[in-house]
Each structure stands twice: as structure tokens, then as C-alpha cells.
């Protein structure tokens, strides 16, 4: 051992290194960029503990409450930040750290970039497509719940099912929802659910709370697992900021485990009403079927009887009766017409009856047995017979003359 070699206590070495660092003026005020990780906010003290890192290293940081108060918001896990502070050694842990008094966001961190890249890749592969989303069964009687056995999510779901009177079977497939093993654990639970093939829908749930550890639901293998699940998958991860990859792949995204349970448990009373409604429809429509047939049958019967032989004979008989009546009518009319004509003629004859005429004062004069109608051919002294209504007169022609204007030729004769 060389002379002057000194044995130091831990405290001495820490103090020595710390003093070396503090001698370096430029370390008193540094600006360092990195990605936030391991963020812990101590509610009680108000101090913020975190680390910043890049591909090559990691530095622990502490920000005391009086500076934390100035921050508009706490940084997110994975966020790229610019840290300003004093680089020094924390003697208690022998750890190099930055006492931070300012923290600025620097856009997206690597973790966020990776996540975005994965989202893009899965989107391109079609895992998020709307047309691949399946509707939830409206009345599932067996539902699988993939969640932590101890978490609030399970209690919320069961409570909701009870509240809505859901009378189905709920199978819990326990898994870890946080930590490095969570994605694989969730995936195993999902596979078990698929193997058993008892459930009509699967809920992957986690209660709300620490928002920094959603990484389990951003897992690529889980994304493929949920996408390939034969029954619809509901994501109920209970956070609001960002959609996880599981949210995007799932057939339905529920804001909370409670909402997921509501989506899967039909209201019992509504169901009951629906069944009663269908029952009424069945009996109403059956009645309609029977009535329709009865009406059709009645119509057929009417048609049939109209075409029966009896009906035809009756129809023909009626037609015959009608024709006979027509005939009779025609005959009678003819008879009536003839009788009318005879009467008319008789009346005409009566008018012409010489006896009737003679009763009115007219008479007929006969010469040589023939009725006289002209003076021509008469001879004086010729015997005439005049027939009256009640007898006859015998006379002789004394003279005669012809009426004037009757015939010009006879004018002289008249004067004769």
C-alpha cells in the first residue's frame, strides 16, 4: 500500500464527491433534456421525485414543493422534458441527482413515439377498423370478466349486475392489470376464456386510478389477442386522457367498468315487457291467420254455391220464367193492339153507317136500284126511291139542274 493512502468513511467520500461537484460552477445551473420516468408525487410533502433518461443514461431528479407549485401541470410518464437545476450528490443514497427548479415540456418522448408508431402499425393492419367491430349480444347469459381479483373494477361490475337484476352467469378470469407481467397475464386470462367457450362477451377491466401505468393495455400481443377473440371484447380500462390500444381494438369501449356492466346487462323489466309483447304478437297474428282463412272460406263457399247445379237450374228457371213473361206480355200487347184497331175500325164503320147518317136527316135516293150521286143521266118522269131512316119515298123527277161551278158544261143544262 502506498503511503498517504487514507481510509474514508462513506460519509466522507460522499461529502468529498459532493464538494468536487459543487466546485464546478457550470454544474450549479444545468439544463438537461430527457424523458420522464418513475414519476412519484408525494402528496404529503408536495415534492416531486422522478428520473430523466435517454438511450445512454438516467439521472434522478427531485423538485421541491415550492417549485412544484409553479408547474402548470405535472409531467407525464414518458414525456420529454427540459430540466433546469443544480447537479449534485444526494449523500444519503450516494446518488447523483439534479435539484430541479424548473421543468419544461419538450414535446413527445420516446415512449409516446413508440406507442404512436405501434398504433399506426396496428391501424394499418386493420385492427381498429369499424367494420370489424362486433355488436354486443343484447341478452348475454354468460359474461367473462378479465380483471384483477382485488381491484375496484370487479366490485363495480358485480354491483352493477346486481343493481340491474341481471340473472346471468359471470365468470371471473383473474389477472394482473399492472406491472411488467400484466399484458401476458391478461392475455392468458383471455385465452382461458376462449378455451372454455362459455362466455358470449369478454370484459377486460381495470379500475380508474394511477394513470401512468396503462402500459399493460398498450401491449401489441394483447392487441392481437383481443382482435382474435371469438366473442366481442369490451375494454373498460377506466381512464379518460388517452385511448389505449386495447380501447381501439376492442369491439366496444366502455368509459368505466360500471358502464361495461350496464352495456352487458339488459334491464330485466324491459326484457319481460319485450317477451310479453312478442307473446301478444304471436296470439294476435295467429288469430289473424284464422280470421283470414275464415273470410276466404266464406268467400269460396259463396262462389261454390253460385256455381252449383241446383243454383244453375234455379237460375235457368228464373230466366225461363222471365222469357215466358216477356212472350206473354208481347202477345197481350199484340192482342190489345188488335182489339184497339178493331174498335177503331168499328167506330169508323159506325160513322159510315148510312142508317146512322139518315137518322141525322140525310137520305139516299136510288134510281133504277142505284144510289144517285149525280144529276147526269136523269130523265124527267123517272121514278126515284128515296130511303129515309124509317121508311122510303117513291117520287118522280120533275126537273133537275146541276150546281153552278161544278162543271161549266152543265150550266146550260141547269137552265134547261
Amino acid at each position: 500500500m502506498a503511503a498517504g493512502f487514507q481510509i474514508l468513511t462513506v460519509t466522507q467520500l460522499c461529502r468529498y464527491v459532493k464538494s468536487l461537484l459543487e466546485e464546478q460552477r457550470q454544474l450549479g445551473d444545468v439544463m438537461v433534456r430527457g424523458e420522464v420516468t418513475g414519476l412519484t408525487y408525494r402528496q404529503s410533502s408536495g415534492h416531486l421525485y422522478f428520473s430523466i433518461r435517454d438511450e445512454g443514461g438516467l439521472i434522478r431528479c427531485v423538485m421541491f414543493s415550492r417549485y412544484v407549485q409553479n408547474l402548470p401541470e405535472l409531467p407525464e410518464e414518458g414525456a420529454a422534458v427540459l430540466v433546469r437545476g443544480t447537479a449534485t450528490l444526494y449523500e444519503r443514497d450516494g446518488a447523483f441527482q439534479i435539484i430541479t427548479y424548473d421543468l419544461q415540456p419538450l414535446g413527445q418522448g420516446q415512449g409516446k413515439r413508440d406507442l404512436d408508431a405501434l398504433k399506426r402499425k396496428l391501424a394499418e393492419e386493420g385492427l381498429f377498423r369499424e367494420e370489424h367491430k362486433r355488436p354486443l349480444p343484447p341478452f348475454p347469459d354468460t359474461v367473462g370478466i378479465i380483471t384483477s381479483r382485488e381491484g375496484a373494477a370487479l366490485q363495480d361490475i358485480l354491483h352493477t349486475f346486481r343493481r340491474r337484476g341481471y340473472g346471468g352467469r359471470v365468470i371471473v378470469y383473474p389477472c394482473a392489470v399492472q406491472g411488467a407481467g400484466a399484458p401476458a397475464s391478461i392475455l392468458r386470462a383471455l385465452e382461458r376464456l376462449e378455451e372454455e367457450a362459455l362466455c358470449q362477451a369478454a370484459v377486460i377491466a381495470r379500475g380508474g386510478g394511477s394513470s401512468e401505468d396503462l402500459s399493460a393495455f398498450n401491449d401489441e400481443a394483447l392487441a392481437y389477442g383481443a382482435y382474435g377473440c371469438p366473442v366481442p371484447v369490451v375494454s373498460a380500462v377506466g381512464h379518460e386522457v388517452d385511448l389505449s390500444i386495447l380501447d381501439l381494438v376492442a369491439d366496444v369501449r366502455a368509459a368505466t367498468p360500471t358502464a361495461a356492466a350496464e352495456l352487458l346487462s339488459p334491464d330485466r323489466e324491459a326484457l319481460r315487457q319485450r317477451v310479453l309483447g312478442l307473446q301478444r304478437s304471436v296470439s294476435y297474428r295467429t288469430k289473424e291467420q284464422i280470421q283470414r282463412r275464415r273470410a276466404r272460406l266464406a268467400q269460396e263457399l259463396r262462389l261454390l254455391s253460385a256455381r252449383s247445379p241446383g243454383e244453375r237450374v234455379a237460375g235457368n228457371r228464373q230466366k225461363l220464367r222471365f222469357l215466358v213473361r216477356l212472350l206473354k206480355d208481347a202477345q197481350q200487347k199484340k192482342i190489345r193492339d188488335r182489339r184497339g184497331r178493331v174498335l177503331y175500325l168499328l167506330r169508323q164503320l159506325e160513322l159510315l153507317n148510312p142508317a146512322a147518317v139518315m137518322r141525322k136527316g140525310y137520305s139516299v135516293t136510288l134510281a133504277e136500284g142505284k144510289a144517285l150521286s149525280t144529276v147526269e143521266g136523269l130523265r124527267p118522269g123517272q121514278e126515284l126511291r128515296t130511303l129515309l131512316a124509317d121508311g122510303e119515298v117513291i117520287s118522280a123527277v120533275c126537273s133537275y139542274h146541276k150546281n153552278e161551278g161544278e162543271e161549266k158544261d152543265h150550266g146550260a143544262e141547269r137552265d134547261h
Partner: protein
Amino acid sequence: MEQKETIEQSLRRLEEIVERLGEDTVSLDDSLALFSEGMKLSQRCMKQLDEAELVVEEHSVS
């Protein structure tokens, strides 16, 4: 164990029956058979609904 129809299956079948009963082409025999099936099915549904109890199980994941 009896293979029970799910409520969903029963409802779907009931809807089918109602649909069929609305058609002009269904025969009288068929409509009577559909009626009796529909009545039985809806009664069974109601019974199922009234008696259904929430069952919670935990299945181990290897």
C-alpha cells in the same frame, strides 16, 4: 345437464315466429304449430327471467 336455450336465442326464435305468422303463405297447420311453440317459448322465457339469479364464478387461469 339440460341444454337450456339462452334468452337471446328464445327471443330470436320468438321474433321469427311472429314474422312467419305475419306471412300470407303460412299454412293453417303451420300457424297453429307456430302459435303453440310461441306460447310455450314465451312462457319459458318469462319463467327464466323470473327465476334467473346472478351467478358469479371464478375460473382459474393457469
